């Protein structure tokens, strides 16, 4: 095979993107664990680990730019590099969202709305991320569509969870029970906001997983059907 160094560089990029995705998935899992267990140490681990993900992102961005500038890739190679370039952005953003989970864990003052199954939403988005990256690794077109289909499930769970929070807040005796001085009310409202932001952030993780699947589909088949 000609251009062996170039082909090796492409394989290296694929391996590096997959490694970054494993680190990001691990951070998301840790963020969810931190939320579940209210574990401040885990929360800090996620927050402090963000620099590592950002560095990986910049390094991989450089790899992509170097390949484009020095090797003038075309056809499937070009689509692979272009897709990887976009996918690392989605991975970096998922890393940021995991950091948010750590921040919510540290800032939360009380347990609210135990009926909201944040772990189920979170684990579903984590599975979507892992499935999208498996699709990337194997150029699996069917898996790309499956990830996109699953986003509807996540959106429905997030919408239901948000409605549950708002409805309970209005209809239940929660406010009356908790109402105290202004500081107490403000603290409660901040916890409610954090809960809603957590739901929104997990929904965004699902969106980024769909982006990864869409770029993978473009990479594998030059098909932009899932892009927008």
């Amino acid at each position, binding site marked *: 095979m*000609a251009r062996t160094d*170039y082909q090796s560089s492409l394989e290296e990029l694929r391996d590096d993107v997959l490694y970054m995705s494993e680190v990001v998935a691990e951070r998301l899992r840790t963020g969810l664990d931190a939320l579940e267990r209210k574990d401040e140490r885990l929360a800090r681990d996620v927050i402090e680990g963000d620099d590592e993900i950002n560095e990986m992102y910049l390094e991989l961005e450089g790899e992509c730019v170097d390949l484009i500038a020095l090797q003038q890739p*075309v*056809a499937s190679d070009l689509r692979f590099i272009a897709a990887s370039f976009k996918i690392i952005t989605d991975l970096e953003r998922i890393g940021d969202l995991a950091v948010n989970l750590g921040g919510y864990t540290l800032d939360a003052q009380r347990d609210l709305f135990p009926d909201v199954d944040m772990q189920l939403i979170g684990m579903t988005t984590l599975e979507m991320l892992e499935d999208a990256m498996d699709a990337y690794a194997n150029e699996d077109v069917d898996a790309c569509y499956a990830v996109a289909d699953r986003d509807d499930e996540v959106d429905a769970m997030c919408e239901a969870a948000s409605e549950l929070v708002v409805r309970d807040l209005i209809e239940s005796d929660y406010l009356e029970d908790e109402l105290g001085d202004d500081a107490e009310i403000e603290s409660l409202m901040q916890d409610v906001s954090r809960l809603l932001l957590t739901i929104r952030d997990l929904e965004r993780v699902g969106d980024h997983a769909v982006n990864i699947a869409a770029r993978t589909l473009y990479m594998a088949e030059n098909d932009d059907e899932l892009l927008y």
Partner: protein
Amino acid sequence: MTDSQEYAAGESTDDPTTDDMAIETDVSDSVASSGATMRANTVVRAENVDVWYNDDQALQDISLEIPENQVTAMIGPSGCGKSTFLRCINRMNDLIDAARVEGDLYLRGKNVYDDDVDPVALRRRVGMVFQSPNPFPKSIYDNVAYGLKIQNKEGDYDDIVEQSLKRAALWDEVKDQLDQSGLDLSGGQQQRLCIARAIAPDPEVILMDEPASALDPVATSQIEDLIAELAEEYTVVIVTHNMQQAARISNKTAVFLTGGELVEFDDTEKIFENPESQRVEDYITGKFG
């Protein structure tokens, strides 16, 4: 040469409109006889063209249509036949004794291999620029006017020379030294002088065989810019080993592979982003060749 011979080769009348009308008639005849359809903007059409050099087949069953006022690039590994095909269009292969061409190759519907076509007249309609700049050992002015003089073409030579040099993006650099030898120019200037010489007789098609391969990056970029401008008035067909150059400057790309086979011919974006053929994919991504 008689007027009728000139007419048959499409050269001829001072009235290009009349010439075009004659050509349209030829198109209809050709389509009727071949049963093929021809897009209105097709200038060159090859049908089942085979070329042999003695017993070696250089091109196999080539069929394609080259559109008007666009840049069509021919790419492929060495020995794949892309230059051979280019030279079929203006019958330069006639100059090689061992070469034999079969099949049909039409210029605006007229088969250029018909017995009544004069190759010299054909080459006035289909100009050519070669890999190495090859100006004549004459002045810049005479290099450009050479084709006009040997045709005894009437007209304002000064104006034609100036317009040709302007179209070749060389006028501003040489307008004060038209008496200077063309050989004194830089490599890039010499190649643009050759382009000016090729366009002075006002051809319809310009064939370019690796026109920038002997030039430095700056001169190459000037030639590439010039090719894009030329395509506004002429149909340009370029052979290049430089795939990035083909990607940068062409509208259509034909990929020839070893054995003289045309494997894929499509819009350049399609060829370089998502080719149909795995062999083309492997070639352009450097997996072989």
